[in-house]
Structure formats: structure tokens, C-alpha cells
């Protein structure tokens, strides 16, 4: 009798635990998997005349992601516009990841080697930009780098340059913006990894005839690799889908894939093509991550 009651109570507790997570599960299902399925379905439909879709199956959108048909003679060739935009997005995201790593590693090292009571202050300073809306921060960057902005006025005033440097509406501007926006996402995981790093290993490395460079390459980097992997993913993935930064700083001619997808849902009035491009972006990111994580987790066997 009492055993049965206990078992019943246990079952009830288990059910309650499941119920507690139900809201989160519902939001995740409805907010992530649902829209994803809609996008997947839309990519196989026909565009309606003004916007939206007609419920007629078509592989046209997927075909047009990769190929284009000449409007005069109907010959089919590789769609270099789409590929160029994809390539530019990948290139800018990889570059952003590399720059944030190069800048973030010394920063994270600096914070991790401060006395414990000062560390939280530095981490706090790193997270301050998150308090401001991304759009406002991006416009602030625009204010700094535009032709009659702060940077150019200062350089002109000091007589270092005679003509304003054209930064706005170039890939460089997009890079500056994305580096600024995503840098904290690189610094924080790197800090967490360096914080766990045993500094006595540096002495062991120097003692065994390693130069500073060799200690960095053979001791520090392999040991903080989990932080590097986490930081790179946190920077690379949102960079690839960046929308606001390339829109504001890159202008209409320096589109990244995010802007191009938006174009299909707006002025382009081609929702299936936009959906197909979105799915392709998702596939590219997933495949890239799989390869990256696998490569990063394989022990180097070069000894």
C-alpha cells in the first residue's frame, strides 16, 4: 500500500518535472522547428504575383539558387551573382572570426592575468556594449568612419591625409562593424579557457628550450582550444547571417547573404527563392560547423 503510494508520488514528481519544462519546449518547437518547416516547404512552392506563395509545387527556386537562364537565348549557366554573395559572406565572416581572435586573445589573456578582484571589472567593461541596441551601435560606428565623420575629420585636421578615406560602403567598413559587434563573443569564451590554464606550464615550456612563439603554439593554443572553438563558432555563425551591420555600413552594393535573402522577401517578391537561400545558408553553417568541430577535436598526431 505504502509502496504503491510512494511509486505513485514518484511518478507524479516526474510528470511535474516534465510539465515544468513544457513552456520552454513549446517555445522551442513553435519558435524554431515550426518556422524552419515553413521555410523548407515554401522553398518548394511557386512565387505569387505580388508577395507570398502559391501552393503549387516547384523546384524552380532551388534551381535558381545555383543556375540562371539567359533571358535572350535561354542558355543555362552558373548563377555567379548568388555565388559571389555567398562567397563574400563566407570571406567576411572568416575574416571577422580571425580578426576577433587576433584581437580577443591578448585581451582575454590580459583579463585572465589580472588579480582576481580586478577581473570582474574588466569582464563587466567588455559586456557594456551589449546594453545598447545593435542598430544604435552600428550607427555610432557609421558616425566614426563616414567621410565627414570623427576619424576622417581628425586625420584631416592633423594633416595626415588630404582627402577623406572612403571607408563607408566598403567591405572594410562591414569588417570594422562586425569585429566591433562580435568581439565580446570571442573574448568571453577565450577568457574562460585561459582562466583555467595552469600558468606554471609556461615555465615548464621555457625550461624545455621553447621560445615564446613555441610556447604559444605548442602549449597555450592546444590547451585553450575549447575556448577558441567556442569563440569562433559564436562569432562565425552570426557573422554569416549578419543583416544590420552590412546594411548600414556596407550600403546596397556590398550585400551579404542576409541582406540578399531579405531582398527576396521584400522588393524581390520571390519568397520561394528567399526560402531556398535561407535553407542553403543553414546547410552551409551546419556542414561548416561539423567539419570545424571534428577537426578541432582530433588530436594532433604530428609528434
Amino acid at each position, binding site marked *: 500500500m505504502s509502496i504503491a503510494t510512494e511509486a505513485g508520488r514518484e511518478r507524479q514528481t516526474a510528470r511535474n518535472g516534465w510539465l515544468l519544462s513544457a513552456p520552454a519546449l513549446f517555445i522551442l518547437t513553435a519558435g524554431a522547428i515550426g518556422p524552419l518547416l515553413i521555410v523548407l516547404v515554401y522553398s518548394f512552392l511557386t512565387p505569387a504575383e505580388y508577395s507570398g506563395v502559391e501552393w503549387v509545387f516547384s523546384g524552380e527556386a532551388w534551381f535558381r539558387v545555383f543556375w540562371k537562364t539567359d533571358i535572350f537565348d535561354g542558355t543555362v549557366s552558373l548563377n555567379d551573382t548568388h555565388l559571389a554573395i555567398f562567397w563574400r559572406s563566407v570571406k567576411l565572416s572568416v575574416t571577422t572570426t580571425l580578426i576577433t581572435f587576433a584581437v580577443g586573445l591578448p585581451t582575454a589573456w590580459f583579463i585572465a592575468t589580472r588579480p582576481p578582484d580586478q577581473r570582474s571589472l574588466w569582464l563587466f567593461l567588455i559586456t557594456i556594449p551589449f546594453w545598447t541596441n545593435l542598430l544604435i551601435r552600428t550607427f555610432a560606428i557609421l558616425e566614426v568612419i563616414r567621410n565627414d565623420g570623427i576619424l576622417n575629420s581628425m586625420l584631416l585636421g592633423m594633416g595626415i591625409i588630404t582627402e577623406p578615406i572612403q571607408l563607408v560602403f566598403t567591405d572594410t567598413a562591414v569588417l570594422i562593424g562586425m569585429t566591433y559587434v562580435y568581439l565580446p563573443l570571442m573574448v568571453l569564451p577565450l577568457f574562460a579557457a585561459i582562466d583555467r590554464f595552469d600558468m*606554471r606550464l609556461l*615555465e*615548464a*615550456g621555457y625550461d*624545455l*628550450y621553447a621560445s615564446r612563439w613555441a610556447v604559444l603554439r605548442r*602549449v597555450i593554443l592546444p590547451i585553450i582550444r575549447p575556448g577558441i572553438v567556442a569563440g569562433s563558432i559564436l562569432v562565425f555563425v552570426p557573422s554569416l547571417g549578419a543583416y544590420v551591420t552590412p546594411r548600414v555600413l556596407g550600403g546596397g552594393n556590398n550585400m551579404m547573404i542576409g541582406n540578399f535573402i531579405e531582398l527576396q522577401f521584400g522588393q524581390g517578391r520571390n519568397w520561394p527563392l528567399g526560402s531556398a537561400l535561407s535553407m542553403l545558408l543553414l546547410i552551409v553553417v551546419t556542414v561548416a560547423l561539423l567539419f570545424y568541430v571534428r577537426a578541432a577535436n582530433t588530436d594532433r598526431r604530428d*609528434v
Partner: protein
Amino acid sequence: MTRETTVEAKAVGKTFGHGTSAFRALDNVSIRIDRGEFFTLLGPSGCGKTTLLRCIAGFESPSVGTILLSGRDITAEPPNRRPVNTVFQSYALFPHLTVTQNVAFGLEMLGRPKAQVAATVARMLALVKLEAFAGRKPAQLSGGQQQRVALARALAPAPEVLLLDEPLSALDLKLRKEMQSELKRLQHETGITFVFVTHDQEEALTMSDRVGVMSAGKLLQVGTPREIYNNPVSRFVADFIGETNFLPGVARGGVVRLASGEAVAERVANGPVTVAVRPEQVRIAAAGTRGIPALVARCVYFGTDTHVHMTLEGGVEVVARVQSPPSGDAGFAPGAKVVVLFAPDSVQVLDD
């Protein structure tokens, strides 16, 4: 026989911090360590022995003085240029590398050819008996095995000097005894100069060719374990190494007398002195015979030995270590009247 010097410290001083918070870790330390010698730096924690070791390794640079290696001034050389390797107290093994890769690290950094690296690593792993663990990561090894890896890693590049910073302090007693003889064997087989830092006086006495005793940044005495034990230069050394009875005395007219008036030694300079006698050199005889009258206070049984605590006239305590008889009872009842005698040449006279 003239011996060749490997490491030499000349008037080395090291001060940490500055102003009122300055801490003098090393104070005018000069030392010569012979080639192929097992040299131990002994002293309580904070005495500067580790700082001196780190100065030799290159992790600290002396505030004053020079460090020579085989006659060459290496004071300004960074650690990765010094043919000196360290076994760290924490072992500091590279956690991402296997045992083999750890041992190979120094050789690779020296740019040795691959075949030579592989051969040396195999030889080192055989030397420390870890062939079976070559492919493991440090986290998969016991403390004693990690210690062996650290030794093999530091010995592999065949340094001129091997520095050992309290390497046995993290091991339990049985393993520590094992590693002590292991270290002696390794030193014998490789012929490399070992500079060993410890605060354990027994470790220092049993393992070393010579011992340097340090306190408060100063090198107090350098000598063989026998010299250090039998002829300590100061009360600190006598007290730190082994157990010692300290008795107040006065030197006058070439003779040192205890407070009881007993003459125990000869000494030219007059003045108050401290007489030091090791407990095993104290003999106990029946009351009434020649000797210093004493009262037995208590006996402490140690197994092979029994420590007999006695009080001399004037309240000074003397401890005698006598071998426990088969019955286990040394036969000295508390309150018994006895006389104590000091074995000839066993009395040390130290300045107060």
C-alpha cells in the same frame, strides 16, 4: 682531488617588492656546486632555497650577483637558453600531450632529428620504467608515475644540471622512500649534477653528497651530511638538522663549563656559549659515579629507541636516546637519580 664546478653563484641577492614592503629572499649567497654532485638546498619554507633554484633555472633574475654555469656567466640568459632543466613541485606536465610527447618536448624544441628524439625518449622511458604508459595522458597516471614522467622529461635533453624543486613533497611516505632511492639511482646512472630543494632534513641527509643549509635568505653552512650533522656552525643548523640538546655554558680560561660547573670542552675565546649534544651521544650511568647529576623526568618509547628526558641542576632539560632493550622497558623510572655523560668529541660549542 680537484673538482670541476658546474653551477656557481657569486654574491647573489634577490629582493622582491620595494620600499617598506620589500622582502629580501636571498642575501649575499655564494655557492659552488661540483660536476656530478647530488647537492641539496635545505631549509624551512620561505628561507630562499626555491628562489635560489629559480635564479639558476632563469625564472628569476638576481637583484645583485652573478650565476655561472661551467664558468660561463648565464645571469642574463633566458631559461630556454640555459642547458638546465627543472622538475617542478607540481610536475607541470603538459596535459594535452601523451607521456611520449611530454618527454620528447625538450628534444624537439632543441631541434634534434626525429630518429634521435624517438631513441632518447625510449631510453628515458626505460630509465624511469614507464614504457607501458607511453601513450597515456598525464591525467591517466598516478602521482608517482607523473613524477617519473616529469623526471624523464627533464633528463631527456641531458642538461648540465637538473634542478628539483621539492619533487617528493606531494607523495605519500612509502612512495617517497621509493623515489628517494630511484633519484639516487638516476643520478648515478646519468652522472648529471642534481640540485635538490627540500625542507625535509632526513631526505637531505640520506640522499645528498653535500648539503647547503639556508635560513632567512642566507646560506648558513655547506658540507657533507656528516659535517652538517656532527659539526653544525650555528644553533639554527644544529636545531634544524636532527634533534639536539642545547645547554647553556661559559668559556673561561680555555675551558667550557656547564652551569653545574662540569667541564665539557675546550675553547680559547671567553664568554657565554651554547653547548650542543646529540641525544644519541648522551650516556646515562648510575648515580654516584662520575658525571653530571640528573633527575629522570619521563621516558618516551619510539620502538627501536627510547628517549629519556632528564632534568639537570638548574632546570635544564637533556634528552638521551638509548636503544630499547628486548623487554621494551629502558628501566628508568621517573624521579630516579642518575648521572649523564657526553661521549668524547660529541660536544659542539656554539657562540651564543
